[in-house]
């Protein structure tokens, strides 16, 4: 199982805070997971295909395509604006 989280404007756009995907329900490559989620609808496509979208795997930001393992926490969020 992997946990997929959405923050800030993405959470609101998708009306989704968290997904739990069981073994076999998700692609094991990040890029494929994004394509898979993009098929859930127009708002999902926008979020997943945007160049602005940031990804963190197990709370570490990554710009690379990575293999997902069971237990991973994958988070999608817009550019940060703290401070």
């Amino acid at each position, binding site marked *: 199982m992997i946990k997929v989280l959405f923050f800030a404007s993405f959470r609101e756009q998708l009306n989704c805070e968290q997904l739990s995907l069981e073994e076999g329900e998700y692609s094991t490559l990040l890029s494929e997971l994004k394509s898979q989620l993009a098929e859930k609808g127009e708002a999902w496509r926008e979020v997943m295909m945007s160049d*602005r979208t940031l990804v*963190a795997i197990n709370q570490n930001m990554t710009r690379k395509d990575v293999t997902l393992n069971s237990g991973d926490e994958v988070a999608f969020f817009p550019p940060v604006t*703290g401070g």
Partner: protein
Amino acid sequence: MRALISIQVEDFNLGHEYERLEGNKSSGAIVTFTGTVRDMNLGDEVGGLFLEHYPGMTEKALQEIIDEAMERWELQVVRVIHRIGQMHPGDRIVFVGVVSAHRKEAFAACEFIMDYLKTRAPFWKKETTPEGDRWVDERESDQEAADRWL
């Protein structure tokens, strides 16, 4: 070297925070920065600000930023406080305090930590304006400020 990180809803007391940074006889410099909520952004009146974060990752990201600052400069204490939740114009939102033997190191590290915090720590601002609520967009100038350190 001590790194003290707090993510909190409550306000903080500058006098108290300053006193926590004092007391090391080998320190020659204490630099602090306090960020506050502005009442204007992009020409609109801002009535309030809601700050969201990614619990767990926020602390980790701030620790990594402080670790990187420690690799670059000789630092004795670093204190970072970031508030979350509902705030209003004039409220304190962020605090960075850096203690070092030398002034230049303390100034540089404080600026570095703020520049990286603004581009790497998972916080998001939502403003309340007369036209409704809106998520704040990232600024190119913040990214450029962070890129200076690369």
